[in-house]
């Protein structure tokens, strides 16, 4: 299996553009950006991405809630999901892993290495 399609859920436009550029140009992925949890919930079932990246702190619906909602959709229950967060303390990381995330990428991310970080997480989960 190969990682190709990614949905990135993030409410901050500045981060959206740079993440999209980094993931597409350096990772060669096909990236769809969603600006909120509800928007992602609408898009994910039809896009069927290979992976979802979720910002933790979002207005309306935060990252963890969005993950739980994704899991409730049968066709999406097994899509690997990783969190993007500025809070990378071990307690929070284990909490995120407990609710079913495959990993956590710390923010601010380095645009140069983001694609590789995502790929590493995905491969550890799918092929590892």
């Amino acid at each position, binding site marked *: 299996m190969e990682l190709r399609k990614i949905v990135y859920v993030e409410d901050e436009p*500045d981060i959206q553009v*740079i993440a999209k550029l980094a993931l597409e140009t350096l990772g060669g992925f096909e990236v769809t950006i969603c600006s909120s949890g509800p928007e992602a919930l609408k898009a994910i079932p039809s896009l069927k991405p290979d992976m979802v990246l979720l910002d933790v702190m979002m207005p309306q619906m935060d990252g963890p809630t969005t993950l739980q909602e994704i899991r409730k959709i049968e066709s999406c229950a097994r899509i690997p999901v990783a969190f993007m967060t*500025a809070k990378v303390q071990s307690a929070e990381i284990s909490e995120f892993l407990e609710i079913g995330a495959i990993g956590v990428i710390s923010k*601010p991310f380095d645009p140069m290495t983001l694609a590789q970080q995502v790929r590493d997480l995905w491969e550890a989960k799918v092929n590892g």
Partner: protein
Amino acid sequence: MANPPGGMSPSFEQKMRELRDAYEKTLPEKTERIKEMWMSLRTLQRLPPDLLYPFREIVHKLAGSGATYGFSALSSIMQRLEHKLDQLKEFPEDTQRFIVDIDSLVRYMDSVIRSEDAKVEHDGLTEQKMPRPETPKLLFVCEPGSPLRRLPEQIRHFGWDVLPCDYAQMDERLDLYRPEVVLFHETAEHACPAPASLNLNPAPVVFNLHPKPDLCSRAAAFRKGIREVLPVQIDVAELVDRLDGVFIQMADAPYRVLIIDDDDDVAMYHREVLEQARMEIRLSKTAQEVQDTLAEFKPDVILMDLHLLEFNGIELSAAIRQDQSLKEVPIVFASVAQDLTSHLGAIRAGGDDFLMKPIQPSFLVASLESRARRGRELRELLHFDGLTGMLNHRTTEELMQQAVARADRTDGELVVVMIDLDHFKQVNDTYGHVTGDRVLVNFARFLRGRMRKSDVIGRYGGEEFMLVLVDTNLATARAVIESLRVSFASVNHSNNDTPLNVTFSAGLAVYPTFTTPVELTHASDAALYEAKHRGRNCSVVATQDMLKSRLTDG
């Protein structure tokens, strides 16, 4: 620091730059919004969490996106701001203090955005300090008939503008005068107000003059956001020292590190790590680049790879050390383990240090910081006079020679001034050496407060001082020295009821009337001699005749 797969594509770099430029253009708007939100929030005095939440949200976002786009200085300010907002929630009783802190952070953000380069830390700005205005403004608030009424006049001598007022006038004066600093004389009837409650936005820095400061009054003042509580009896010079501490001083400048490494990835990585730790970095790859950099950048410490293209690190460091002004700069080698064992002898012989690659970020920061600190302390010992903190004799002469060489090249003007305190031996004999030393220290502070940054101020001998006023013509220099002379004569150095005033005499020699450093020194000295001869407490401009007769008199 891993490389992207397949290397960096040029188109990515290009797009990245475009995104970054676009982002940079939005920064003034973003920071303006933060500033405006804060300005309206802070007027509330009480800051309920639900009102702060949207503000914190915006700050948080800018912290994140700033770091992602490489604007580390801005991002770190935003992180600190976010942290303050979190603390505010936890310690609501300290709200007024946090308002002052956030005011300074917002002001700091503003100055970073206005400066050309929001990407790196610069000038050693911290949230607690601001750049020194030419003449800082102090509002002195006290009772109408206060015994401290002579204080403003004394503070003025040290380069401050001071406006005295009584309690009832304070609000109006704050609004009109807009001082950077407020000095408040606290009495039983008039408690020092919290800076955040004053009629000035952002809040000024407030010092409290208290009849009897103790731990309780100081803790209470801290809670209100007052900078410091000082005893009423404080010595003027000491007080001015505290007031000047509000502004950025030389010792606050970030450590400067020169990285010499021909591996771009490693160099960039080290740079990033050290910049995050608020150090100022230059990168050089070749001997030529090192030379060019060292011409304008005096590092506190050099981090050098042992393996370089033309010359190895040991050769290059030996060459650097032959430059007199770089003799004392610590050099740290970075290399892999097997190199270090074989070169340990050579490295140690140069008195240098080494770090084993790969270097952990925290370890890199800690080791360079401690060596930079040591390097800077050593340089201070070598270049500055221990008592007055002025440049010492040798360094003054070196800088004077450099200034003359520059004037030569650029057809510029400069004036060398030799100053001697009058009857200083009497001061020592009558009041003791402690008092004599205090006068010297006061004179140093006095000059620092009144001269430009570019001027050279040195202690030439016991009570003899040399000033080099660069890009200055004789008429201006005379006016400056005369105003210094009159002003210094009215500084009171006494800490009891009997006033102690000291005067000085000065000799001025102008370039290009006198063309060499030696001539300028002798001429200014001859003019000083003439000034003493004319009865002291005056200044004299050197002529060729004075120089000749001085030289023949021996």
